């Protein structure tokens, strides 16, 4: 092939990539545009691309239009996601240390046990958890969700951190130990600098999964501890009149995840593939 033909082919494939990117993004762009339309403009066929923009959808969503306020749900989601992420890190870090830097015997078996719990469907334990919560007055309590989200994300976190900590060269640790450094110093000076980006990625993914979770939240919370996804389920049967509000709500609730995900695209890949893809 001549250079010009190669260049032309490259240009063509670039255009195809752009086209597919736009097709995949179109629903989100349309949702964003609709969220700034008035309800009457939102519910038209053919769609009105050039309709006047308004913040009414957002005003409605945030409750100034008379609906229920989303703030309690947003706060609950924030608490549940942040607290469970913190607990996951506290439990997963020592575990990953014991599985990578000074591995226990049969450490691969332990690692597989963690992953296997992820394959146990959530529904298989939902009823006993519900009955337990009901009998101990833990229903509609955000801390129950925190415990469950911790268990939901812990296996993934252990896998990820195991692979991130395994990147710390043992020789360097040994050298530091020979030089008389104690464990806390080794952790802070040698392990942390290498492992911190991985730990951040782990935290990010745990946060995203907790923020997104619906089934536990739907079954185990009610009025007080309702999370943002549960709040969204209130729109499932809503009719056309609330389209702009539905779009505004979906966008606002997705915003933390979108922002975090865009900011850490590369780390996200490595994390989501349990650290196996570098």
């Amino acid at each position, binding site marked *: 092939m001549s250079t010009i033909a190669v260049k032309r082919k490259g240009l063509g494939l670039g255009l195809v990539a752009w086209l597919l*990117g736009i097709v*995949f993004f179109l629903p*989100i762009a349309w949702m964003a545009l*609709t969220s700034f339309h008035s309800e009457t403009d939102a519910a038209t066929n*053919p769609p009105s691309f050039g309709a006047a923009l308004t913040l009414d959808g957002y005003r409605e969503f945030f409750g100034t239009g008379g609906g229920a306020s989303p703030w309690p749900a947003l706060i609950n989601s924030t608490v549940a996601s942040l607290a469970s992420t913190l607990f996951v890190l506290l439990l997963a870090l020592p575990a990953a240390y014991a599985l990578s830097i000074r591995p226990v015997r049969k450490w691969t078996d332990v690692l597989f046990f*963690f992953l296997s719990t992820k394959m146990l469907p959530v529904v298989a334990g939902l009823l006993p958890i519900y009955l337990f919560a009901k009998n101990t007055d833990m229903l509609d309590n955000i801390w129950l969700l925190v415990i469950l989200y911790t*268990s939901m994300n812990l296996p993934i976190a252990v896998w990820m951190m195991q692979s991130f900590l395994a990147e710390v060269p043992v020789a360097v640790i040994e050298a530091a130990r020979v030089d008389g450094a104690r464990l806390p110093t080794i952790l802070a000076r040698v392990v942390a600098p290498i492992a911190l980006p991985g730990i951040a990625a782990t935290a990010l993914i745990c946060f995203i999964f907790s923020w997104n979770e619906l089934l536990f939240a739907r079954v185990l919370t009610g009025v007080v501890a309702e999370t943002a996804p549960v709040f969204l389920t209130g729109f499932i049967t809503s009719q056309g009149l609330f389209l702009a509000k539905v779009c505004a709500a979906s966008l606002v609730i997705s915003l933390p995840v979108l922002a975090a995900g*865009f900011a850490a695209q590369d780390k996200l890949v490595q994390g989501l593939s349990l650290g196996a893809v570098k």
Partner: protein
Amino acid sequence: MTATTVAPPATQTVRTADPSKARLRAWATRAPLLPALIFMIVVTQLPFVATVVISFFDWNSLYPKARHFTGVDNYKDVLTDADLRHSVWTTVLLTVTVVLVSLVLGLLLALLLDRRFKGRGVVRTLLIAPFLVVPVAAALLWKHVLYNPEYGLLNGLLHYVGGPQPDWISNTPLLAVEASLVWQWTPFMMLILLAGLQSRDQQQMEAARVDGASDWQIFRYLTLPHLRRYLELGALLGSIYIVQNFDAVFTITSGGLGTANLPYTVYQSFYQAHENGLASAAGVLVVIGSIIIATFALRVVSSLFREEVGRA
């Protein structure tokens, strides 16, 4: 948790012949692992054991006094229940379709994005977005904003070309759920496969090109074998999440029109029908099915994993 009381890991590495000290050292190595391990067993394994126990009882939560042991009756009921058998089939169909289609689409997109072109970073960001929308929000977007027969975007666009105006969710309910999930999961597959593509041996590719290999030959004999483990990883992780999908089924069809998968069916039988025993039996059957898939899946991961360890 009681596990917080365990001793911190010992820093001493002095070798000793004393067996009691050796045992102590072994425990010190294990200690950091215990909190996580005990937590997982208590929060995930114990409830499952309880589910197994409940599955042998006839127990409707509206009539708690009538609760009694029935042996395997619940299992018989579940296995002879046409709805439940249908939801098993739905789960299989939904998972296999979504995983395969999003893998193929993801591969296509990854191959495109692996080349240099203007604005590649922007396109990549646009493509990741669907995976980052909260699943319920994504399902609402498809249900109301795209599929709605009167003012949805799909029919709006069809209107311009004078096409038909179908009622997507009523006409093809399972396909509607699958399409929304494919949209969400294709970016995930793309990300993993793109990482795979970028870890190819460039020298080997260059050598093949110099030897006159065509693009297709390079793809077929170099890229595809190299991508195999990445394809397996994507399929495995995708399956773990899609088999358990609840959000899309719950939001788009509420399990109606033959789209109820197993997670939705179990949810419904205890949350709405209050049949604790039946729901538990169904849950146990879901687990047995998952174990069969998981044994196979874990073998795949462990092969991936061995390569990983071997490289180190």
